């Protein structure tokens, strides 16, 4: 007897332990996705401008970045705060040497205090480590002409550094004239670089006759003033339309990824749902029990084909067909892309949709079927007017479940799309067609691709978790909605 009782308590205990572990898992998944996302909020915000003093007819007028005399003022490289005289490459040569090389000069220094500027410690460029959104940054810039300059005008031109987009920088960026040379009359100057990231302005020519006089040239400052907190800036940037985490001025805007994922889901579900429901109607209303016996295992085979294999199948057989169709018109190098992905996604989700829809249809009580039949409704009318409306909740639940599955499916997109993140463009029919057939990148495959070569616990790593969290929250919401609809279907029927 005691053995039975012991056994009983063991079963009971195991049950409780399992229940507890499940709850723990749920909490842990949430907690760790949140916890690891914190690394995203440790990010810093790089920025950089190239500024040059040019003659009005300079060939680099429109491309300051190409101008070899331009100064780069940037915060982009970790560890560059320590950079000083060691980097002689950008140190300005002496007055005599410089006079033989160029006529107009911009110069800067590590310091942001004008009184600490020394004529023998001026540099062409200044690079500092990126800062948090709460920390500002200030660069100084001297601009002057050398004695042999013959022009009667000179122009200060500026431009964001290559690949830097001021929209991805939370600071208020201003270029300000701190001090004009003695005897030169200019109006106070202040330029909002976020509004006017590229531009130029004319200055009266002022020549430095000696190296000591360099310091009396035009003194500008480039100020980055904090406007928001790092947390807010990170979130705000996360919603921007460009994802480029590995470039110097990293951008973490996940909008193109989200839209691609949603677009793929929409197409795949739009294709799979009507087909799936049609097949489910055939199975539950038309097929004989024998056919049904055969059909179910076949569906299970389709459901069990790994997504990696489906992806390959698409690459080897679907993509070439698509390339033949659209390749010439759109100059596609392969048929891989959003449409191929969505097609394969539809194949992937079809068995799930069919079997869930069939369950929903079979949950409709037979009495309703008989009632409709006795009323003289044809099969199509019974399905359309009685069965589908009655099974609505169950069908919606099936659709929601399918949506969540497609949104999170990784390998098919990875293998079959594998493009660069691009915003969908539906502005013209040609653009829309291009969006549909060209490669793109969704949320899950981005995580899978980039997690492989990311530094752990870096902001990029954190952003990948933030992407995962986004996906989790989205699918969680959809799944819970589906769960509610399934419950409702059970209550109604």
């Amino acid at each position: 007897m005691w053995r039975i009782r012991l056994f009983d308590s063991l079963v009971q205990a195991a049950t409780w332990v399992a229940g507890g572990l499940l709850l723990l898992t749920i909490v842990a998944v949430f907690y760790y996705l949140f916890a690891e996302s914190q690394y995203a909020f440790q990010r810093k915000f790089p920025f950089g401008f190239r500024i040059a003093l040019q003659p009005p007819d300079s060939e680099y007028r429109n491309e300051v970045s190409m101008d070899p005399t331009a100064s780069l003022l940037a915060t982009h490289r970790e560890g560059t705060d320590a950079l000083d005289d060691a980097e002689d490459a950008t140190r300005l040569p002496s007055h005599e040497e410089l006079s033989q090389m160029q006529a107009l000069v911009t110069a800067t220094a590590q310091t942001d205090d004008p009184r600490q500027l020394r004529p023998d410690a001026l540099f062409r460029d200044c690079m500092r480590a990126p800062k948090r959104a709460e920390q500002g940054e200030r660069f100084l810039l001297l601009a002057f002409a050398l004695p042999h300059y013959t022009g009667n005008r000179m122009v200060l031109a500026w431009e964001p550094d290559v690949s830097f987009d001021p929209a991805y920088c939370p600071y208020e960026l201003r270029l300000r004239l701190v001090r004009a040379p003695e005897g030169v009359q200019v109006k106070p100057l202040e330029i909002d670089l976020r509004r006017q990231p590229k531009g130029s302005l004319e200055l009266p020519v002022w020549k430095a006759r000696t190296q000591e006089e360099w310091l009396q040239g035009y003194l500008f400052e480039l100020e980055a003033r904090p406007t928001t907190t790092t947390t807010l800036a990170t979130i705000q940037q996360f919603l921007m339309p460009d994802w480029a985490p590995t470039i110097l001025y990293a951008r973490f805007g996940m909008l193109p990824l989200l839209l691609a994922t949603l677009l793929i889901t929409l197409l795949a579900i739009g294709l799979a749902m009507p087909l799936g429901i049609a097949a489910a109607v055939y199975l539950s209303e038309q097929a004989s029990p024998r056919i049904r016996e055969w059909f179910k295992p076949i569906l299970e085979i389709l459901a069990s084909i790994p997504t990696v294999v489906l992806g390959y199948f698409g690459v080897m057989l679907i993509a070439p067909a698509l390339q033949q169709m659209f390749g010439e018109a759109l100059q596609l190098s392969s048929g891989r892309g959003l449409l191929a992905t969505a097609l394969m996604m539809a194949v992937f989700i079809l068995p799930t949709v069919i079997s869930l829809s069939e369950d929903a249809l079979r949950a409709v009580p037979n009495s309703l079927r008989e009632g409709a039949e006795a009323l003289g409704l044809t099969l199509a009318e019974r399905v359309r007017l009685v069965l589908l409306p009655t099974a609505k909740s169950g069908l919606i639940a099936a659709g929601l479940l399918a949506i969540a599955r497609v949104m999170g499916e990784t390998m098919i997109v990875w293998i079959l799309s594998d493009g660069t993140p691009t915003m969908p463009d539906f502005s013209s029919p040609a653009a829309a067609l291009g969006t549909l057939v060209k490669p793109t990148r969704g949320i899950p495959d981005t995580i899978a691709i980039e997690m492989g070569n990311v530094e752990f616990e870096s902001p990029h790593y954190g952003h990948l978790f933030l992407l995962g969290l986004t996906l989790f929250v989205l699918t969680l919401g959809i799944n819970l909605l589906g769960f509610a609809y399934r419950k409702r279907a059970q209550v109604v029927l």
Partner: protein
Amino acid sequence: MVAAMTLPKQKVAMETVELSVSYNGKPALKRVSLAFPANAVTALIGPSGCGKSTLLRCLNRMNDRIPGVEITGKVMLNGEDIYARRVNLTRLRREVGMVFQKPNPFPMSIFENVALGPRLHYGLRGRALQEVVEDALRKAALWDEVKDELHKSGLALSGGQQQRLCIARMLAVQPRILLMDEPCSALDPISTQKIEELIVELGKQYTVIVVTHNLQQAARISHYTGFLMYGELVEWGETRQVFENPTRPETEDYIRGRFG
């Protein structure tokens, strides 16, 4: 056992000829020949499993959908066998309506429940459709109760009202023959009484065939009664005669309550 029994001076609405049914080889109905008088209420009685529901469901071919069913014999309607090869089922069910044991209104509004049939069958719209719906609901003695809430879900009605809604739904398709499969067995006594009154009323205009396991009910509402046992038609005649003066001992035993 009993040859086709028709009654003199009574028009026949529907007739089965040597009708046999089996499910997966198990016989459920054995060579039943029976004529249903027009514009009268016929009750089919018998112990459970005797085949009375099977017989009823054969009259509008509702048994077709059951897997493993095999039907032989004929069911004559308007001089045609409804089991003949090229019979239009839609048309058959337009003429032969059916109400089930459990009320089964569709999960839509009261109006839609009733309007569904005439809209599909006759293409009625608007005013004409509304009139047909009202007429059907009146005939089912439900109009007064629901006329102000036609948009409410049919499922929100009480059990008895639901059953009358199902009757209205059937009537709106304009059938001539009404099949009722134990229409009161899922209802409370008051609802049952209302439905019984309704059946009596409908019997004046329609051919009504009711399956019931309630003998008193059969006696109260029907003009004719058929008694089935083990899939065979045992006794058939005017209700009073079957109940008061049965010709066969099995009938007598059943009616006296010795089994079933």
